[in-house]
Structures are given as structure tokens and as C-alpha cells.
């Protein structure tokens, strides 16, 4: 007989392990948080969208923020940091323009910043799936 104690709670996630792993993995590698939760389709779509946006931003000669001289630079830097390892790799490899020199480069800069913000949204979604706040 099901009692209040042994009845499963709706939306409760029974997975064990470090609860913040999907959040951190999702931030470092786009889509990895969903892959860890075996959400292959969603993870692949998120990964393709975020990486595609980042690569297009670089291809448009977008700027990668390397420091914060004013408040707008600081906000851009925060957005870029959302890309996780993509940001680190682009800094190490010297990708991205130092200064925006063409009109499309301004769009590219925005593509890179927004891909970082979308990646944060995806990582938080993976965390919500892991904690049971959002049903699997």
C-alpha cells in the first residue's frame, strides 16, 4: 500500500551524484548538461545552435572581449564568459577581432555575446532538469 512516505513525488529526480554537474558541464561545453541527463536530442540542438552562433560570430570578425574598460565592455565580457570553454579556446588561439573594423563585425560581436547568454540559459535548464524543478 502506498503511503505518504513511499509514494514518489511528482517531478522528483531520483538521480544520484553531484547535483551541480549538469550546470557546470553545460556551461563549459554547450549541450553537455543535457547529454549527461541523456537528453540527446535537446542537447544536440542546443549544442548546434550555441556553437553555430559562436562560430558565425567569429566568422563575421566579431570581437572577443578581453578586458573591461567601461560598463558596456563589462557586460560584453560577462556575455562572452557564458560560452565557457569556447571563450577560453578562442582566447588561447587568438580568434576574434581586437577591434570591429567592418559593419558585419558588430553583428558578429553580438552573436558571440548572445551565444554565451543562451549557453547560460541552457545550463540552467539542465540544472532544473537535474533537480526536478522541470520534469525530465
Amino acid at each position, binding site marked *: 500500500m502506498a503511503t505518504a512516505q513511499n509514494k514518489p513525488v511528482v517531478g522528483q529526480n531520483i538521480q544520484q551524484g553531484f547535483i551541480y554537474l549538469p550546470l557546470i558541464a553545460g556551461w563549459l561545453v554547450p549541450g553537455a548538461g543535457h547529454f549527461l541527463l541523456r537528453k540527446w536530442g*535537446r542537447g544536440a*540542438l*542546443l549544442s548546434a*545552435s*550555441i556553437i*553555430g*552562433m559562436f562560430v*558565425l560570430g567569429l*566568422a*563575421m*570578425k566579431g570581437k572577443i572581449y578581453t578586458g573591461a574598460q567601461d560598463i558596456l565592455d563589462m557586460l560584453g565580457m560577462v556575455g562572452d564568459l557564458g560560452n565557457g570553454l569556447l571563450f577560453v579556446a578562442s582566447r588561447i588561439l587568438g580568434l576574434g577581432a581586437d577591434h570591429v573594423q567592418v559593419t*558585419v563585425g558588430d*553583428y558578429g560581436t*553580438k*552573436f558571440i555575446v*548572445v*551565444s554565451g547568454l*543562451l549557453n547560460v*540559459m*541552457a545550463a*540552467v*535548464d539542465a540544472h532544473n532538469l537535474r533537480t526536478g524543478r*522541470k*520534469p525530465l
Partner: protein
Amino acid sequence: MGISHFSAVLLFALFASVVFGITQRETARRMIRYGVYCFTLFVGSAIVLSWVMFLIAR
């Protein structure tokens, strides 16, 4: 990379709508509906605002 402004809008809207749809809704059907809704709003608002700016500039 040579890309028109409108192509950039379409790509931006596509990628953002995919992420919005997946993260903001729970079932696959509702994700698709919300993604299409966001894509339409992104592209539609870009076209409307472009015409508004064009008419203001005349």
C-alpha cells in the same frame, strides 16, 4: 564573411528560437510551438522596425 543584414537576422532568430523553445517549455510539442512563435516575433519585429526606420528617415 559576406552576409547580408537580413540573413544575419534570420540566423540569429533561428538559433535563439531553438534555445528559447527547448529551455522555456516542457513538452516537445510545446517547445516547437514556442520556438516557431519566437522565430516569427524576431523576424516580424525586425521587418516592422526596419520599415519604421525607413519611413522616419525619409
